[in-house]
């Protein structure tokens, strides 16, 4: 028997992931070695440094188009672009996670058994700046996402899925206030996420049975020239899709989203809304475009119906929400629907516009959650809509920024929300999916209402007694807000450079 040979490994192409995983491991060690007082700053610097280094590595590799480690990882245009986006968005969310000046001790719980606001809690919070294990956890998650969008076989994809999901489950449970809500959210996310992972894995098994391999290119060839029963293919594709649609929060696999978005600590919510979305859609794009392109006529109507259902679910339920975090959760579901419209264009335009949308939406949603973390009273964040009445009079700057972000969500021109919607709808129209464009436009009309309601509350209502104070944002949150605003307006007014970039990147290797 031939001795087992190590496949050639392109370390340079893998460098971004290696850096992040290395930094995450180092972060675990730092937790042991560094004294408590210095831990927060050390961990934050380490993770930011790692993200910047990984980003530099991605940029250095920008010309690489290769498949490495025995076909497990593909580094191509979409991979590099999505990895870059995840790193940038992840870096920005890391700033939010690192914010400790808004609330003493930060938003993460340092010891679950201590009652919130008790003397002991206060003492602890004053001395120890929160739980610092969130940084390595978040770094692990980021590393997993980088691998997820690069995975070129279904098993690597599954491993990456677990690598980034497990830290997220944990992070969701770490809210310092409203702990029950947070723990319930984490449990819900974990259980449903596990089901979804199981579906995914089961689906991979079917596909293996159909294609005789798990590499996307092998699946592609088998789809083009089927040797075995197509039932295996359809069942497998359906189950893999369920796993991916769950992460991307498409209806009817979206039910976890509002609860998790509401219960998780706001920086983690922001992290999930921005980065997980990029990762999930990145993998979905690769699976559909690379492996299953041959059966596009079969899955296009099914996934198209799912997109329509998602847009309607998100838009209609957003109208009825009274809690801002839940409202944004439903809006993110609707946005997942719009992203799906771009994905289903199934042409180069679809790929590039979806990637454009992911970046644009990520920055807006980060800024939105950053603002939510600022409006608080003695019980923590005041997320009930009624509490935001008249906040425009008390802090016009904050309300102004939020208004702009909401207008971007509503797709008003000169914001990134408009250009990105235009891009995906244009791509879908070109791809012959006019019906999706029409439903997209109709749901945009519905969705404008909840956003507008918040704008009305903030500016046109008189401030009530219960209107909470707005915290002065710390340096880190200010940076997030400034960046989010800059990108939201920048991509609305001058989207050309990013469009060019996504177009250059829009070619998968097989």
């Amino acid at each position: 028997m031939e001795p087992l040979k190590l496949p050639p490994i392109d370390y340079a192409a893998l460098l971004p992931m290696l850096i992040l995983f290395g930094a995450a491991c180092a972060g675990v060690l730092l937790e042991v070695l560094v004294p408590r007082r210095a831990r927060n700053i050390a961990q934050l610097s380490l993770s930011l440094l790692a993200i910047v280094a990984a980003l530099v590595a991605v940029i250095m590799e920008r010309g690489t188009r290769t498949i490495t480690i025995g076909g497990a990882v593909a580094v191509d245009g979409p991979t590099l672009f999505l990895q870059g986006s995840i790193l940038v968005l992840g870096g920005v969310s890391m700033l939010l996670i690192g914010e400790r000046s808004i609330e003493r001790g930060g938003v993460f719980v340092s010891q679950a058994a201590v009652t919130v606001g008790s003397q002991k809690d206060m003492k602890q919070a004053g001395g120890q700046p929160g739980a610092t294990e969130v940084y390595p956890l978040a770094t692990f998650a980021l590393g997993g996402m980088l691998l997820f969008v690069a995975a070129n076989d279904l098993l690597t994809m599954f491993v990456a899925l677990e690598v980034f999901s497990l830290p997220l489950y944990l992070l969701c449970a770490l809210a310092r206030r409203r702990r029950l809500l947070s723990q319930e959210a984490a449990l819900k996310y974990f259980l449903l996420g596990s089901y979804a992972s199981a579906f995914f894995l089961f689906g991979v098994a079917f596909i293996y049975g159909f294609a005789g391999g798990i590499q996307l290119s092998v699946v592609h060839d088998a789809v083009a020239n089927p040797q075995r029963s197509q039932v295996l293919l359809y069942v497998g594709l359906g189950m893999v899709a369920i796993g991916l649609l769950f992460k991307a929060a498409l209806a009817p696999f979206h039910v976890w989203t509002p609860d998790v978005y509401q219960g998780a600590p706001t920086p983690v919510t922001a992290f999930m809304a921005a980065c997980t979305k990029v990762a999930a859609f990145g993998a979905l794009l690769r699976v559909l475009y690379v492996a299953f392109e041959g059966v596009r006529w079969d899955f296009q109507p099914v996934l198209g119906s799912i997109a329509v259902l998602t847009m309607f679910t998100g838009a209609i339920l957003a109208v009825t929400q009274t809690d801002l975090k839940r409202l944004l959760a439903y809006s993110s579901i609707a946005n997942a629907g719009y992203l799906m419209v771009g994905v289903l264009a199934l042409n180069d335009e679809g790929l590039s516009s979806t990637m454009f949308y992911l970046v644009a939406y990520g920055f807006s949603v980060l800024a939105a959650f950053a603002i939510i973390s600022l409006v608080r009273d003695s019980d923590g964040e005041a997320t009930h809509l009624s509490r935001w009445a008249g906040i425009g009079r008390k802090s016009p700057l904050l309300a102004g920024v939020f208004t702009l972000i909401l207008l971007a969500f509503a797709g008003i021109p000169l914001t990134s929300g408009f250009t990105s919607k235009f891009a995906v709808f244009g791509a879908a129209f070109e791809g012959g999916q006019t019906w999706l464009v029409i439903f997209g436009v109709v749901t945009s009309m519905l969705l404008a209402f909840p956003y507008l309601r918040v704008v009305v509350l903030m500016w046109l209502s008189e401030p009530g007694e219960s209107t909470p104070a707005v915290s002065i944002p710390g340096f880190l949150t200010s940076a997030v807000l400034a960046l989010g605003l800059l990108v939201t307006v920048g991509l609305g007014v001058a989207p050309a450079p990013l469009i060019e970039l996504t177009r250059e990147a829009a070619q998968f290797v097989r």
Partner: protein
Amino acid sequence: MFADFPFLSILTLLPLVGAAVVAFIPRSKAQLAKLVALGWSLVVLVLSVFMWAAFTIDGDRFQFRESYTWIPAWGANFTFAADGIALVMLMLIAILFPVVILASWNDVDQSTRSAPAYFALLLSFEFTMIGVFAAADVFLFYVFFEIMLIPMYFIIGSFGSGQKQYAAVKFFLYSLVGGLFMLASVIGLWVLGGHTFDFTELAKSTAAIDQNTARWLFLGFFVAFAIKAPFFPFHTWLPDSGGAAPAGAAALLVGVMDKVGTFGILRYCLSLFPEASRWFAPTAMILAVIGIIYAALLAVGQNDLKRLVSYTSIAHFGFIGIGIFAFTTQAGTGAVLYMVNHGLATGLLFIVVGMFVARRGSSLVSDFGGAGKLVPVLAGVLFFAGLASLALPGTAPFVSEFLVLIGTFSTNKGYAVVATIGIVLAAAYVLWMIQRTTQGTLNPALAELPAMSKDITLREKAVVAPLIVLLLVLGFYPKPVIDVINPAVQATMQDVGAKDPVPTVEAGGKVGG
């Protein structure tokens, strides 16, 4: 003279810069903010006058063309160009804004809201208005079409009266819904028209779009414009918005912003989708005629002055509508002239009504009565504005209404005849409104109000004088404006493939219409 000067881009950006400057003036220096805003809008007016002078009547259809690259991947450019129709609308904007700013001088003083913010919003609204008429790139047009909602939304919502929140949200949602229909059409047009947004190129390439698709695309545009104008049955937002907005802003709302709808139909629906326009014309005519009669009847029954004026405006838009869809140069020219004259007349009417409302503190007709005894000059101005609004011969609206009706009569006799009933109803609602507010016995509650004893002030005279002069001048000598409009309308009618009815020679040898 000045033909190469980049008029349109500077005109567009100037108010935006002004808005930024005014917004940064602190609240304590409200007077300074007002002066800067007024000065700024006057600079825009002066520049517009120069542009008018530089426009060559026999020249190209589109003049002052400028184009700057924006999003090359989509073929979207900052392209500005004006034909005669856009030019007269830009002139109307340039005239109305300083007038409205002066008219709104004290509107915000009594409220808790910030005066610099109000005037900054007015200037940013001027920016979006100039942009939407100056754009010659469909993408750019769409951008301005949507963002114009934002300043007006805050003007109504923050500075209005009555049910202002409801009105602001209704206004925003109605317009946004129309805008999104248009977005779908814009995307379709872009993909099928060869990935370009340039108006002149699109006008050439749309002929290749198949008939059915073109009709759907046409409908997307039409719905957006019909909501904006507004035409029956998309009109219900206007009385609410017009009733809730501050009087000056309401004058802009019906005087300028609603014209975007009719302008859009002329420029985009007719020129880009000629076949679909001919197909839809009968329906549009019916809607327009219903609008004339229905809105006029509702106006007769109104007890709120501002809502009443809003309804008259809907009726007038019906006339503009039949003028456009009659597809004759005469009616088309009349419709465009109507857009200008309606801006002046209804603008004046709204502003004068605003002066009454500011004195009385109420906009209900029943709260007035015999006001002419207290403020005779102001009542006289109201009377004049009302007469202009009902198109009395000698005032400018008469010319345009007459042109529309005879132009329509030559191709669509029935509609023209029914529309004439609207003129009778116009006399009814205007005269009855004036009779109930300024004539008759003096309402005792009115006499007790110290504000009502103050007749028209110097500032108010300065506000109404330019509009009255213009209404009279254009009533007797509309030629300069018609000369500018006519070539553009002829070009549009050519696009739509309409031929003017040829005069026939009757037996007696006389030439008849």
